[in-house]
């Protein structure tokens, strides 16, 4: 009975996110895993996972945590999501509270990886298993980590490729570009460092403007309006996240925009969400200038996360170190993600 | 004898106002020296210069043979000058005892026992039952004033300045205060005493200085002058010493209260005729203000009935009261009466602003006219009506409050301590105004702690004691002893 409901629920949750062919593949994998899951699900029922999220006001993170919660619910596993709302201290307390209430597994996506190390060790000592996702916290039973520097670097690569394709004959240093950064957390900081490698990858570009603390649509629009005052020739923008990129896109495509030729303008960013996918899909006919983003995690990040969690809970063998794959999404492969 | 304090050529300027103009004066050690002048003459400004609360624009201060170009509150206190300001300067969230001992140090740490004893001792002299531990917050103006006076006299001072100390007090406490002043005088303390109550000056002052428009007029020995001379020096004209009388008599009842309970008052009934001036007497805490607030809808009644011209009315809010033509001139001008940050004109028009508006929009011209009309009726002393009320002298602020209520065209007006802090000239004007209002058929309830004025102005007096009606006196029964007898009766 339990296995039945698991198979019934999982694809339903996936249909909105996973591409069609992936779905078939995933379904196949699920059936294979089903036999094991059948017995596992019985053992799993009643177990608890505490999911420590850095900030669920980011739509990506909220989608991720809710998806994992749905997957687990099918096995009778309770997932309590704790939102640190960007505060490293709150997160420490939340880890402690999960440990105090005897949570079987705590998943930590750290606000500040080095800041939760001690709290994780205390939680482990108190008998909880800890699985880390995101930045390296130093202590964990298993980790799915995102290399934020690599994320930024890949964004730079996409930008560089677009420049090479669009301006094949440009002189070195002749293409003006801008970076919209956010360095308010160490994680964010290293992603921005990665973004800055674009000048090493592509000699055609010069970074003429770097604006900090840009994470939202409106902030990005205002920043672009100001930037284009001094540097009207800017062709490319790398944005810390997709929220900012959406603002740049809105700015570039709206009536009366200083961006005269949309085909000669691009913005790239990180973090996948529905809105960004839709925008990238429209970049083919230049009705959007949001041309690419870096998605981290496999095509089924919630599934991967939950599968690892399940293994830990059932005391099965699992990989301790699980680097998240990073994927470039552009007009070429966006159809797979719609 | 060497003067203890000499002010030489003091000038103090405010925007558009010369509050003090080349003013010089001497105070002799051990004397009680009264300052007399109309509202806005500069009395409070003068004492603030002495205490260091403000800095004079020019001139110098010689105190105990030392010359200062300005004082500071600290210097003056360290040198034995204590001041009771016209407006309260109390810390509401601290106890009476702590307020009284504010700024004193006994030992390393705060000694609450000692402070409470000091407070209790002084309260005993006032024959008043205030708990030294009680917070000042929530005290009646009279009790606050007693705390204020206690604060000054608890210190070892050489010069005590009292700016209208009797204004919030009733006869009983004023008597106690005079006893205390007597004792201080015997100790050789110099006292500067400001009051608009002429009888007080004649009772306690050795010398009196009259000032006008910030200038020095004359210093006289009290025993060599008289009321009329002082008044004419002050206001530059003769004033009759009689209370004016309303000329018309009406028989119709305009307001009747039946068994009013609430707000600490119980079972109060009386009626008020058109054109009548009805006095409400009582000691501190008798519940007169409370009654006024019930009638005015500022506080809710527990039970009882109110009839306006024979018809029962329900007053649930102040706007109901205003709607029925009831006006209140509250006793505490600073906290209840006016909007200090706004202009005179704005204040005067305020109570009636809806009537000066058409479809919500204020008719500026009408408000200006009303302000001018009522402001001039009250002869408010100011360079212009766009001046903020906070810049007016205390008495002139009171006039603004009255003008504001008058401008609302009321049929019944409750005056709660209307002449508190008002100069003799203006008092006379207010009395005349009350009579004129009465002649128009307006019913007036007058609450006053100035016994003489209450007896002089009222046509009938109701005495409250401990929130109950203790007695009613007709004109022919009027006397101070009769009032006091009822006032100190219990229930």
């Amino acid at each position: 009975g339990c296995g039945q409901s698991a198979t019934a629920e999982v694809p339903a949750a996936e249909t909105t996110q996973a591409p069609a062919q992936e779905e078939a593949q995933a379904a196949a994998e699920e059936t294979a895993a089903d036999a094991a899951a059948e017995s596992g699900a019985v053992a799993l029922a009643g177990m608890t996972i505490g999911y420590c999220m850095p900030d669920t006001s980011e739509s990506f993170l909220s989608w991720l945590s809710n998806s994992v919660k749905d997957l687990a619910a099918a096995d009778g596993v309770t997932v309590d999501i704790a939102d640190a709302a960007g505060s490293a201290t709150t997160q420490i307390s939340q880890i402690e509270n999960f440990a105090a209430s005897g949570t079987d597994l705590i998943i930590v996506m750290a606000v500040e990886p080095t800041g939760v190390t001690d709290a994780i060790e205390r939680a482990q000592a108190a008998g909880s298993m800890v699985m880390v996702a995101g930045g390296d916290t130093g202590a964990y039973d298993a980790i799915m980590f995102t290399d934020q520097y690599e994320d930024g670097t890949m964004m730079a690569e996409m930008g560089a490729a677009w420049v090479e394709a669009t301006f094949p004959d440009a002189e070195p240093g002749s293409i003006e570009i801008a970076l919209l950064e956010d360095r308010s957390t160490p994680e964010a900081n290293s992603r921005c460092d990665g973004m800055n490698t674009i000048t090493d990858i592509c000699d055609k570009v010069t970074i003429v403007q770097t604006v900090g603390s840009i994470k939202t649509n409106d902030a990005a629009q205002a920043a672009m309006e100001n930037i284009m005052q001094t540097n009207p020739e800017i062709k490319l923008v790398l944005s810390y996240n997709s929220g900012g990129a959406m603002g740049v896109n809105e700015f570039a495509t709206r009536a009366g925009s200083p961006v005269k030729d949309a085909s000669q303008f691009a913005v790239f960013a990180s973090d996948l969400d529905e809105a960004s996918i839709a925008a990238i899909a429209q970049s083919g006919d230049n009705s959007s200038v949001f041309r690419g983003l870096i998605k981290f995690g496999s095509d089924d990040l919630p599934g991967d996360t939950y599968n690892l969690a399940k293994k830990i809970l059932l005391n099965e063998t699992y990989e301790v170190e699980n680097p998240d794959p990073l994927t470039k999404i552009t007009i070429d492969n966006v159809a797979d993600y719609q | 004898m060497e003067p203890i304090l000499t002010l030489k050529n003091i000038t103090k300027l405010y925007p558009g106002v010369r509050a003090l103009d080349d003013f010089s004066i001497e105070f002799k050690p051990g004397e009680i020296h009264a300052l007399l002048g109309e509202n806005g003459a500069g009395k409070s400004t003068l004492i603030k210069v002495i205490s260091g609360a403000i800095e004079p624009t020019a001139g110098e201060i010689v105190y105990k043979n030392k010359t200062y170009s300005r004082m500071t509150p600290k210097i003056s206190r360290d040198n034995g000058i204590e001041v009771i300001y016209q407006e309260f300067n109390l810390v509401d969230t601290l106890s009476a005892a702590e307020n009284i001992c504010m700024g004193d140090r006994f030992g390393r740490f705060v000694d609450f026992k000692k402070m409470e004893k000091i407070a209790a001792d002084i309260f005993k002299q006032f024959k008043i039952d205030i708990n030294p531990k009680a917070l000042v917050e929530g005290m009646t103006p009279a009790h606050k004033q007693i705390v204020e006076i206690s604060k000054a006299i608890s210190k070892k001072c050489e010069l005590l300045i009292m700016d209208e100390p009797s204004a919030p007090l009733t006869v009983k406490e004023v008597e106690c205060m005079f006893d205390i002043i007597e004792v201080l005088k015997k100790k050789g303390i110099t006292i500067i005493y400001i009051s608009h109550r002429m009888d007080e000056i004649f009772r306690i002052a050795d010398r009196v200085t009259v000032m006008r428009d910030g200038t020095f007029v004359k210093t006289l020995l009290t025993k060599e002058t008289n009321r009329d001379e002082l008044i004419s020096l002050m206001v530059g004209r003769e004033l009759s010493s009689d209370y004016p009388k309303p000329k018309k008599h009406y028989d119709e009842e305009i307001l009747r209260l039946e068994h009013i309970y609430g707000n600490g008052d119980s079972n109060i009934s009386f009626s008020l005729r058109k054109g009548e001036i009805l006095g409400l007497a009582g000691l501190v805490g008798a519940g007169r203000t409370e009654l006024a607030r019930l009638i005015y809808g500022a506080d809710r009644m527990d039970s009882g009935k109110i009839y306006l011209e024979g018809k029962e009315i329900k007053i649930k809010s102040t706007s109901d009261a205003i709607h029925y033509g009831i006006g209140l001139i509250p006793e505490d001008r600073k906290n209840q009466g006016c909007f200090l940050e706004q202009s005179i004109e704005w204040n005067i028009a305020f109570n009636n602003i809806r009537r000066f508006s058409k479809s919500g929009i204020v008719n500026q011209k009408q408000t200006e006219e009303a302000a001018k009309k009522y402001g001039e009726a009250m002869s408010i002393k100011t360079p212009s009506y766009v001046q903020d009320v906070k810049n007016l002298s205390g008495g002139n602020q009171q006039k603004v409050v009255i003008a504001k209520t008058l401008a609302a065209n009321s049929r019944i007006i409750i005056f709660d301590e209307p002449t508190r802090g008002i100069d003799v000239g203006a008092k006379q004007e207010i009395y005349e105004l009350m009579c004129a209002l009465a002649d128009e058929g307006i019913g007036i309830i007058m609450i006053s702690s100035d016994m003489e004025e209450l007896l002089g102005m009222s046509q009938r007096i109701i005495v409250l004691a401990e929130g109950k009606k203790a007695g009613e006196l007709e004109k022919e029964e009027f006397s101070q002893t009769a009032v006091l007898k009822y006032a100190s009766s219990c229930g």
Partner: protein
Amino acid sequence: MKEKVIKILKKYTIILVLIGLILFFSIINPVFFSLTNFTNIFVQQSYVIIAAIGLAFVMISGGMDLSVGYQMSLVGVITAVSMMWLNLPVLFSVLIGLAMGVLLGIINGVAAVKLKVHPLIITLGTMTIFQGTSYIISNSNPIFGLPDSFKFLGQGYVGPIPFSVIAMVIVAFFASFVLNKTYFGRYVYALGSNEEAAHLAGVNTKKIKICVFMICGFFVALSAIILVGRAGSATSATGVGTEFTCMTAAVLGGISFKGGSGKVWGVITGVLILGVLSSGMQIIGLGTYPQYIAKGIVLLAAVGFDNYQKNTKIKKTEKAVEA
């Protein structure tokens, strides 16, 4: 005469600060001094100005509204949800958004009146309630692909003038009119300067309190709608933090925390100072963190200078009288 000029200058010190900043940035980088740039600043700040004027009503009445940011979040989400998920017509959705703003204002006002607690604390509480509600409704998802007719509110032009700027000007005139010319406006000032005296003067202080919050909610909702139109999408993070900008601007513009004073032009000037500052610092290429420091210093300098001017007024006029 000279005295009069000085008096006027004193009254409008804060405008001098604004002009000073504009000159400063224009000298360092002439690009700053251009029509486009000024239009940009106006467009960027128009939604802030509208919200700040709403907040000004509350502040003049002696209150405070910390929930402005999450009101915007909630209104934005609800408007977008109406259009995109419930498929309601744009106009109708906008009306729902505005009504929602009014409702949130009423909630704040009624809570302040009933619980008899300072609005700052009330709105500290409602703020998190609005936040939770907004996230529950949006489920943290961005709502995008808003129709062009809606985006017009944030991005469109009427002739050469951005629609949002027109909305802002109308709001400013309307608010200024209400505050200065109607008796309601006087009641608002009265409530802020002496609540007890206002009560004794027959003002239904409770009603006025609820009204100012309602007005604030309405303007905040309008601001949110313009902001969402500009962004082209709504999320629960939209508008969050605006209360801080509005508060700072209001204070810069001479609205006292104690209530009872303040003018609409002051609020607008305050917002523009902040806007010019952030746009100017970016244009002259100051780094993000040095920008923070500069912003703090300018804020302190501006309020300090304003205050200094007001204090010296007395002394200078004194001399003038003497002369």
